[in-house]
């Protein structure tokens, strides 16, 4: 999995690409830790290039959510592909994560 980071209006946008499974853990955790260390608290994850999420991938995401929340931060996801959205629906994580259709929508809501 590749993770690129951009910053827009104080929101850290993580462009993810590839498969979100156990192998993605180190990379994604390190990226989030680095941002938190620098004081970043608002995260928006771009899922447009993520074509697969396994159970461990979901666990990674939830642990990141808890980590960010502990720092009084917020995290949201956007642009979920149909299969990935299905996985979120099956596990009902749609109720745990804020999920948006687009980057603009996500930024607007996170900035409120």
């Amino acid at each position: 999995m590749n993770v690129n980071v951009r910053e827009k209006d104080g929101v850290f946008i993580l462009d993810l690409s590839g498969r979100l499974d156990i192998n993605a853990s180190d990379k994604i955790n390190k990226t989030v830790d680095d941002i938190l260390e620098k004081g970043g608290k608002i995260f928006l994850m771009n899922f447009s290039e993520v074509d697969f999420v396994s159970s461990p991938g979901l666990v990674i995401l939830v642990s990141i959510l808890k980590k960010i929340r502990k720092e009084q931060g917020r995290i949201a996801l956007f642009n979920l592909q149909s299969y990935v959205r299905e996985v979120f629906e099956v596990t009902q994580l749609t109720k745990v994560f804020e999920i948006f259709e687009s980057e603009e929508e996500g930024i607007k809501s996170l900035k409120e």
Partner: protein
Amino acid sequence: MENADIISYLEEELKSPEPKVREQTIEELSNFTDNPEVIKLLVKALEDENRFNQDLVASILAQTYMPEVVEYLIPYLEYRDFFVRNLAISILKQIGDNFIDILVEALEKENNHIKLFIIEIINSFKNPEYAQYLLKYLDNDDPNIVFAVIEGLANLGINEVAPELKKLIEKTDEEALKIAAINALGKCGDCSYVDFLKQFLYSDNPFLMFSAIDALGFLGCDRIVDDFYKIFEDAYDIIKEMIIISLIRIGKKNNADYLKQFDKENVKHILLNAMDEDDIQIKLYAIEALVDYMDFEVLDKTLQYISENEIKDFVNNLFIKDRRKIASVIKNYLLDRTLSSDIVYFLINLLVDCNYLYINEIIDKYSDSDEPLIKESICFAIGKLGIINQKTKGLLSKFIKDEVGNVRKIAANAIGWNYLEEFVDELFALLDDPFIDVREAAIGALVFMGNKKVIDRFIELLNSEDDNLKVEAIKALGWIGVRDVIPVLEESLSSPNREIRKLSVEALARMDSKESAEKILQLLYDEDDQIKQIATVTLANFKYIPAIPHVISLLSDSNMWVRYIAARNLILFGVENVEEYVKQILASDDELAILGVLQSLEDENYEPFINILLILKDHQNSDISLTVNNILEKCKEKGLI
């Protein structure tokens, strides 16, 4: 039977003494709403003595975008039964904007009673273009009509109407109208109206004074601030409250603090007093002012003024300002009061929404409640906020066996989201739950965990007698998507159950399990055509070269879609591996296969096929010739031909 005969028959049926017959007739009539006669009948049916039938008619009419609906409904705006009248108003609010001309015409023609409701309906559209229709009635003889117009103009908040409002304030002797117009001018005017409104600050009439302060606060111009200071000391308490609120508003607009010269405790005291006013609007203004100006802690004190009925308004108004700080106020409210279950549910969910983690005391207070709504909200809070400790685990073990399905469902969610492995047995037990939502939540939780123990238990289920359970198990294993499940999925490719074979190959495809290709190959000869197609796409995506001759053999399959998918995906194996086969298809008579191949050709792989494409450009099948010509255009652009 002609339509006209059917309608006559239905007209008779509408007179039936049986409400059920009339209901069915109304439903029948809804099939003919393009007929004005039918609309007339339906509008008349609003008078039905059965409330359910009246509602049914209203919902049909509200979706009937015909001018006749508006025309026939207008007389009902003065119907003797207020229920029917309200239905007519509500239908017109829903569809009237499409037929504004009819409403405007009626506004001119009809009596004052109907006029009043039409203005109310036009106001509801909140369209600035309609201000022109409203302004005509600003000098109407009936003060109720003028009042409705002012209200509509204030809601529009457009500057163009301000001169007319000013004229009205100058002209009218009606105090209530003057007050309403002053308020509206605050919403529609600009700083050029400050001097005009200022005169009312020194009026003997405290009501006029109050509305002028309110309006000047809305205008937000700082040159009125000194006048506010001047009148403050001798003003009534309620006027003082409004001055403070307006000074905060003006300060906000000008990025300044005009309350500096007041003692902060005094301001706080005044605003808290404002909370005691009966007028909910003043109360909300005061809360807003407190939030804007004061430390949030002061909000706790405001709670004593907020009744259970007002709490939803309170939080909805303030929530947008600072979710986290509002949360601590809500928490105290929940702890201090005895509240109905729906308010507790609403407030706890709100705390969860703002990710407020400090809710242990709330869980303690409400954990013994028997109210399903409260149990649901506590479960949701524990799950979503991840409040996991001995106490909450104990609650979850109780809730997962609760008699209410929804509580069990949310408990399952909470267990999954927090990876509470010790509840795996309870989750598997829920797979037999009578409620589908509960079963789905349990599967979701188990999929989320997806560990060895869970995988083994799902594999055990594959040996179950129950086919549905087997399907659920294979589905779950697919969702889990870790390498440990690959051997089980591969084995399931030869299951006698079609659904299991299909789900297995789909899961292996998603997992990109290229090592399973040889086993998937057998599915190209499956008895099920859809499975053949999924296997074809999967193997082509895997670029599994040994599959090529098998996919080629599918080009002679009896099912045309199997042939099409085989042709459509062949190119994915790589042009160099399938070039000759592709040429053979393009030269064949199988038009669907030709089309499949053409649709798969990408920019980078036109070249080997240009000669044959040139032959196909005049193909008798227009879909083929069109696609070929599009490709040839692109070839031309790239200088290939």
